[in-house]
Structure formats: C-alpha cells, structure tokens
C-alpha cells in the first residue's frame, strides 16, 4: 500500500511538472510584463533595463525555476485586468465553480447508479430501454445546448397551443405542453457568506434555486455516460463465473446484485468515473458561460478574450492541481476498495 501511495504521488508530481512547464512556456512566449507595466511611450533602453532587472533575460531554466518556486507559494503575478494578484482573483471565483461541480456530481451519482444497475439487471424491461434511449440522446446534446433549452423552457417559458384552446381538454393539454418559466438562469443570486472568499448557494432554498438549472445542464453531459458505463460493466460482471457460483450457493438475488456484482462493477467505474468528475471542471467553462455563473470557467474565458496571460496561467495551474488531486484521490479510493491492489501495487 505504501509503495502504491508513493507511486501515485510521484505520478502526480510528474503531471504537475509537465503542466507547470506548459504554463510557464505560455507565460514566457505570450505575456510581456513590460508592455503591461509601462506604457508605449517608455523608450527601448529603459525597457531593456527593466527587463534585466526583472530577470527576463535569464536563460529559460533559471526563469522556469523562479516561476516554479513562486508557484509553490501560489504567486503567479498580477492580473492585467483586475490589477490584483491572480491567485486572489481565482480564489474569489473558485467556490462558485466547486459548488456547481459538487451539485452536478451529486446529481450524477444519485441518478446513475440506480439507473445503470436497474438497466443491467433488467435489460429487456421497457423502462431500461427508455433509459438507454434517453441516454444516447443525452450524449448527443452538447452541454451548452442543454443549458439553452433549459433556459428556454424553465426560465423564459414556452407557450404551445397545438390543441383547440376553447375546449376543456385542449386547454388542459396546451397547459401541460406550456411552461411559465421564471426559474432563475442568470448568475448566482445572493449567496450566503461563509468565510474568506467562500459564498455558498447551499444554505438557503433561494440559493439552491439558482443552482438548479446550471447543475442539471452540467450533469447532463456525464449522466448518460455514467449510466452506460455502469450498465456495461455490470452486465459484464453478471456474466462472470463468481456470480454463477454465488447463485449456485443459493445466495438471494438481491445480495448477489447489490454486493457481489455492484462491488465489482464499481471498481472500473471509480477509475473512469472519478476522472470524469474531475473533467466536469472543463465543462463548467461552457455551463458558466451560458448561465453567467460567476465561477472560474467564466473568468477563464474572460481572461482569454482580454489576453490576461497571468490569469490564464494561474487558471491552468489551479485546474491542473484540481485534476491531479481528484485523480490521486480516485486512485487511493480504488486502492482501498480493490483488495488486489495491496499486493502488487497495480490493479490485477
């Protein structure tokens, strides 16, 4: 287990190293701090002096080491646009994104496991076919389109009247097809302050309502993937000899499904799925853009449009760190759940 842990940590450090090199290369080639610090009018000689003073003429490895040691202190310089340390800007936007990802993850986990398991156990039931049909449609709809459709239906409202409205049943059917809208679909509302830069949407019903549409649309991309993954893995497990043997032992089906099969199903789901939850952070860029959710994704896109290089670099490093942390945690959970990891250091 110790060897496994060390191996994972080493891997994590390696990934962070690669990310930091990329981030540094971006900063080095695209960002010219002199341009930002002084105006156009300053003569070239003065710029050169400043350049020398800041160490911008040092060789690449020296500059990288300086960048890396600053990065270890979470010091990535000043944002061009906000004129304050980039870390502070990112920290201000981080809670909104994390809360959104958290809410979406809850939705995904709570829905995908029962649906996936059900449709693996009863592959021919009409409900399973329905779930499978919906999930393939779900995979085919881009996140931002889901978000737009949700806004149209629940925030703006839809009025359809294909049925004659002067009859009682027609009016009822039209009413079912139409929605009033009115759900909030813009920003976070008034989240409650917790501490530091952390404001939460989870503490009040009003806050939660703001979270509903963004969380659903963020979950919409992963939910079908998870359902299909869980179903496929579970079906494969159900074909295995040990499940047959458990049946031959006379174990009740419920225990076979939810202990024997599910525990084995969850192993690959944890590896694949854990990583996917990390990548939800990437999809927040799209969701936050549509809902103007004031998180890191929106901030990042803004930084791109304004060429705020230090902020882009900080975002990359922080998101990289989030990915690495989730991946490492997922690996550790996997190691804890899978008994075969202990001996070999590698899943059998």
């Amino acid at each position, binding site marked *: 287990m110790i060897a496994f842990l060390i191996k994972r940590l080493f891997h994590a450090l390696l990934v962070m190293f690669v990310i930091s090199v990329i981030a540094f290369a971006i900063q080095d080639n695209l960002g010219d701090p002199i341009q930002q610090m002084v105006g156009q009018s300053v003569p070239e000689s003065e710029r050169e002096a400043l350049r020398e003073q800041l160490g911008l003429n040092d060789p690449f490895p020296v500059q990288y080491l300086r960048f890396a040691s600053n990065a270890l202190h979470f010091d990535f310089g000043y944002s061009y646009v906000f004129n304050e340390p980039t870390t502070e800007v990112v920290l201000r936007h981080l809670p909104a994104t994390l809360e959104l990802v958290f809410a979406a993850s809850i939705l995904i986990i709570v829905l995908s496991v029962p649906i996936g398991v059900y449709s693996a156990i009863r592959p021919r039931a009409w409900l399973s076919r329905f779930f499978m049909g919906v999930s393939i449609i779900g995979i085919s709809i881009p996140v931002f389109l889901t978000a737009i459709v949700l806004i149209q239906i629940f925030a703006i409202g839809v009025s359809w009247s294909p049925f004659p409205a002067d009859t009682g049943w027609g009016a009822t059917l039209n009413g079912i097809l139409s929605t009033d809208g009115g759900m909030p679909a813009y920003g976070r509302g008034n989240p409650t302050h917790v501490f530091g830069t952390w404001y939460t949407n989870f503490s009040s019903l009003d806050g939660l309502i703001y979270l509903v549409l963004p969380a659903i649309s963020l979950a919409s991309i992963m939910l079908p993937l998870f359902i299909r993954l869980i179903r496929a893995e579970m079906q494969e497990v159900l074909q295995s000899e040990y499940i047959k043997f458990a049946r031959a032992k*006379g*174990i009740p089906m419920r225990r076979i499904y939810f202990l024997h099969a599910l525990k084995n199903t969850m192993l690959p789901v944890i590896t694949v799925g854990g990583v996917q939850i990390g990548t939800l952070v990437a999809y927040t860029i799209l969701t936050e853009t549509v809902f103007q959710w004031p998180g890191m994704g929106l901030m990042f896109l803004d930084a791109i449009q304004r060429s705020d290089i230090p902020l882009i670099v900080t975002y990359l490093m922080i998101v990289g760190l989030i990915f690495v942390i989730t991946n490492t945690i997922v690996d550790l959970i996997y190691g804890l759940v899978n008994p075969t990891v202990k001996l070999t250091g590698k899943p059998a």
Partner: protein
Amino acid sequence: MALLEVNNLDVRFALRQGDVRALRDVCFSLDRGERLGIVGESGAGKSVAAFSLLNLIARPGYIAGGSINFDGHELTSMSDRALRKIRGHRISMIFQDPMMTLNPVLTIGEQMIECLKAHRRISSREARAISLRKLEQVQIPSPDKRLDHYPHELSGGMRQRIIIAIALLLDPDIIIADEPTTALDVTIQAEIMALLLELCEKHNVALILITHDLGVVSQVTQRMLVMYAGRVIEQGPTREIINDPQPPYTQGLMNALPQMATPGSRLNQIRGSMPSLNKLPSGCAFHPRCDFATRPEGELRPACVDQVPQFVDSGNCQVACHMVAEMQQAERIPVEEKQ
C-alpha cells in the same frame, strides 16, 4: 426411489437463427451416496446438463421439457425462490476454474458465512465456527487466517479446496462437480480428486462428476454416463463400460486414451470432430465419424442416417446405438470377435 431422477430432459438455447437443442432426452438417476460420472468430448452437453439440474443455465438457454425429480420435489417447475433454498443447501456445485469462481472483492470468510446465513438462521459467530471446521476438513493450513484473506492471496489448489469446503458447508445430499481439476496443475489434480472422493464417502454425499478424463471416472465413480452431441449414448456401471465399451463412440474414447496406444505408434483418434449443435447430422449424430455406419464399400448404413437410435439393454448397461441393437438381434456375437 432414487434421490435424483432425470427424465427426458430437453434443454435449448433460443438464438436468433432459432432454437439450438443442447440436451435431448437425457435420462439418468442417482441414489443417495452414489457417485456418477458424466463423460464426453467438449461440447457434448456435460456442463449444460450439470447447470440445468439447478436451473442455472444462463439466458438464452432454457429447459424446454422433461423432469428433474429431487427427493420428491420437481425442480423444473419450482419457483426461483424455492430453488434457491435447494441450491448450495441440498445440492451444491464445484466449478471448473477456481481462479474465476470466488468473488475477488470479498474475503473467503464473507463468501462462506453468507452461504450459511442464506440457508440457516445462524449467528455470525456460529457461521464462522462452522466455516473454520470445514476449512480444516479440506486440509487448509491455518484456516483462521485464511478466512480473512481475499481469493487472490491463495493458490489455485487452495482455492479449489475452499470451494470444496463451501460445497460441503451445509452438508448437502448431492455435489455436482464440473471438471473440478482440469484448471489445476497436474501435480495437485490427484490430490484434490482424492480429497473430494474421501469427503463424499465420509459424509455419504452423492457426487455427479463431470469430466473428460476417463481415468478419473474409473477411479472415482460407480456408474457413468457417456454423452455425445446432447444425447446420452451409453450408461451403466463404470467398471462394465470401461472394461467392455459397446457403441463405437465409447470404444473410440477408450482407444484414444494414451495408455491404450502401443508405445512408439501414433495415438488413436476418433476421426473428425464433434459437430456443432445447430448443424447436427440426421439419425445417429455420430454416424459421419462412425466406422460401423460406413460400410466397407463407402456407402452409409441407412438406419444410422435415418433413425435416432433407441436405448437397448446390454448387460447392466443401456446403450443407444444401431450397431449394438443389430448385433443383439443377430443373437449376440461376442464383442471380441467383431474387433
């Protein structure tokens, strides 16, 4: 009345191209404490027979007809709930590959205790005590530690011992062992077989042993069943069949044993191979490979091609073969002369 009686068992697999019949008209019986061997080439339907006894054949397989009577209960029409109480409790199974049979994420103890708890109202402590005793019976060293181990921490031979212990947990009436030693190292095969035999004798458990190893069958079982392409070809006391195989197929199986070949010469083989079940030859399914069905002039015997052979008594055995039937009609020619 026999402990287990199987009559005209008919098992099919519903495939896209239509039903494939994996077992036809399979009849046999088993007494308390008796040991029965089922032999045949791979694909003959031995394993299907084993799994269908407990109605464990996987979809798209299903039991299409016949009866399985166990101690007064009709298993083919029994509800799944009632069958579950028999599985592992009164009839238990040993699978072929011990590396695949135990659940990799549950400890040995969990997998034993859950079996006891599924059939008896019993405390965990008692269940653990019983499990320990069974592990001792199958000669597992330091059984107390093993209970908390996961399957991957044990060798194949160890695992098969544990599976035997699980099969014996509830003192069943019958154990069905589906090629219990084929996946093991040659060196431990005999050990495991001897252990299984000893425990069955000691506890008076009936054994259905499925194997393609005629040597094992002759050592372990009292009666045997020879299967070909989903049908029983011959059944009777093991010793009689081994010493004096009647239908050409059983003879072929015997001659194929390495010890039957003269040293230095090629091993004897039955020519051709087992037909696939969805393209079975007409009449006797063995006729394209049978020396008897082909006359010296090269044409085929019409009876073998057209008619499914019926069982005839021959000594203490029952045989489904046109050749044996014809010879009986021709008033018993000694078998030695024919060869």
